[in-house]
């Protein structure tokens, strides 16, 4: 029989379906009969849903010019790593 403390500690594993079936069944039973643990379970589930929903709304697009600035930084590094170039022969 799981205690409330054990249920709370395992809530994330339960939500991620990352536990053995017999413990899943015990968790289910406990959450079904304990209103406090059920509220913990419901609010944690909703928290995850909320921020996942929020993050799928706003795409994280690279700002304009970001790629070009990265290329420039890498080109400078290439020049540095190759050392000073000999003067061009005329």
């Amino acid at each position, binding site marked *: 029989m799981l205690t*409330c*403390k054990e249920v*709370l*500690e395992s*809530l*994330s*594993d339960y939500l*991620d379906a*990352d536990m053995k079936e017999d413990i899943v069944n015990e968790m289910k039973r406990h959450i079904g009969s*304990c209103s*406090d*643990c059920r*509220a*913990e379970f*419901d*609010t*944690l*589930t*909703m*928290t*995850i*849903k*909320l*921020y*996942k*929903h*929020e*993050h799928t709304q706003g795409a*994280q*697009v*690279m*700002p304009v010019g*970001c*790629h070009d*600035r*990265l*290329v420039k*930084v*890498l080109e400078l*590094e*290439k020049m540095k*790593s190759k050392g000073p170039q000999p003067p061009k022969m005329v």
Partner: protein
Amino acid sequence: MAIATDEELVRKSKEDDERAFGELVSRYESKVYSLALRMVRNPEDAEDVLQDTFLRAYRGIKSFQGASTFSTWIYRITANSALMRLRKKQLPTVSIDDAEERETPVNIADWTPGPVEQLLSQELQHEMDEAIEALPPEFRQVFVLRDVEEMSNAEVAEILDLSVAAVKSRLHRARLKVRNRLAGYFSDNAKPKRSAMGAH
């Protein structure tokens, strides 16, 4: 023509083929930027992390042994770079050892009924952003990789060089911290009414 695999591009990059490295940059820059932005939560810092990540990759590609995939390697560099930046800025975060989580349930108010879209007001989004920003950097790394980028525990463990148990523990504590913040928001503000939300 077949598209080159990451492994082929890495091999060519090790032989100073700069076009191959350029292809790796094109392939991963958006993902690295997106991951960085979610960790540092500021476009300027995210761009610095992006540049730092590819600079380090460029300098280190010859010593990259291929024990992990290129993607794991580049995300590890990104996560480390973001962590260093967060530590340098020393944003006011909660200590990683701060055990604010409860061990037993304490009659928490249930604000969950209703569709996600209905709960997700601008004010709540702001509250959630602040809650994520207040996470200790080590928690935020795990949280972003697991719950936002939706990587597996094993992948996150490999990227952050942690045990799977440590990833799971940090993830759980991070989720609780965000949830507790939202619970505070709902108890201070208009709690969604079951009757209104579920009315037919």
